């Protein structure tokens, strides 16, 4: 190998290592820390959600809609529309969840009824403990 070729190769290797050693920390710096391991429960008084109404609460930093459905009791679902992230609202008259942004609708099991959402709303664990609701 010629001396000049060797030096050019060496420069390319050092250059690539230098860029990579800066790019990786930069990417890690910009990426937010993962919140996958958070597992905090949210407690809510039953009286705060009368029959036929809903309330949005933050559980582990994620919005959850808690609905008190006539005859069926309490349901907790992620309130983030699976289309583009707007918060769904409970329409008590039709007993459905509606996204105000692009008109997607879901039933109270979280299944998509109409519109562009690609996936159902995810269910969130909910336990009724005497006068309290424990969500998450």
């Amino acid at each position, binding site marked *: 190998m010629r001396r000049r070729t060797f030096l050019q190769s060496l420069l390319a290797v050092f250059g690539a290592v230098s860029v990579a050693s800066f790019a990786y920390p930069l990417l890690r710096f910009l990426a*937010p820390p993962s*919140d996958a391991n958070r597992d905090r429960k949210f407690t809510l008084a039953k009286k705060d959600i009368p029959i036929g109404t809903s309330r949005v609460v933050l559980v582990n930093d994620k919005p959850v809609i808690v609905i008190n459905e006539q005859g069926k009791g309490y349901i907790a679902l992620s309130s*983030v529309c699976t*289309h583009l992230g*707007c*918060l769904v609202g409970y329409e008590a008259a039709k007993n459905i969840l509606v996204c105000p*942004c692009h008109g997607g609708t879901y039933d109270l099991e979280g299944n998509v009824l109409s519109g562009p959402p690609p996936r159902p709303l995810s269910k969130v664990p909910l336990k009724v403990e005497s006068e309290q609701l424990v969500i998450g």
Partner: protein
Amino acid sequence: MNGTAKRIRNWLEVRVGLDELIRSNLTDYRVPSNINLFHTLGAVAVVGYLIQVITGICLLIYYIPHADHAFRSVQEIMTRVPYGWLFRQMHVVGSNLLIAAVFVHMVTIFLMGNYKRPRELTWISGGLLMVITLCFGFSGYLLPWTQLSYWATTVATSIPTAFPVVGDFVSRLLRGGSSVTGITLTRFFAVHVSLLPPLFVFLMVVHIALIRRIGLSATPFGRSDEEKRPLTEFRKKLHPDGYPYYPYLLQKQALMGILYFVVMFLVISFAPTFFFPEEATVPADAFKTPESIRPEWYFLAPYQMLKIIPNKFLGISLQIILLAVFIFWPFLDTHKEKNIFKRPVLRGVFIAIMIAMVILMWWGRR
């Protein structure tokens, strides 16, 4: 010219060659004699950018980029800071007018066929400048921290999730978490005031340098004198029989710049709430998406497309393909004829796209 001015001029002359600089850039720089008002739109855009820079710096003095203070600081700019309302209105109305000016500039360049060889790079740099201008609009939209800005940003930052594998990561990278929070606000602020401006200045320098280096193109409507030679070597387009840039074109540009100001102040004076719908005056509420959430007018067409195309991946991929076609159009349209009046198919497609855009915007606004 009085003695002091003469001395300053001489001082500059012997150091930087002022006379030659003025001659080569203004009086001896010839532009095509059939140049028209549409050739001034690039300069109008430059005026618009300067207004955004100056008013943006003024707003920076009082704006607080924090989720707890952003909305209030903007309200104080509007109500308590002397003439704060003026600078904010100029910034908001200016951003909308600027996007309109850039859009009209690109449409006229398209209609005059001036994207054709050897000006492909000029078109691409202009297209990228338009994308950056839209990024300025998008990143600045969140900063007042209103219901409208919060939810429009939520929708926009969800768009990458349509893509498998990297989508969620990109969305989290933009937001700084799983949802739009104060971290998103500081990220967007940093992008708006420190990442986009140098990128923009770089592209603008490239764009203007290319225009000067390649030479202005005459319109196809007056006479068809564009290059017909085989493109085997670089040859600057000169216009020895044209008019001097100063005063001929520069005065036209100044006139259009003043017209830009007139339109801006007409909107500020007689329709001050035109760009401020009700949700733009309500502080952001992460627990409630407003009933009528819609983006700024320039994002209405893509927004409505997302609404009517049932598959999210398909809808967003289609928009990315359309954007790529727009930016790389000079390489797709290899037809030699510049005059769109002699190209019925292209004319038909152009009119159809314009009508589709207007319908989508009107539909998205309802």
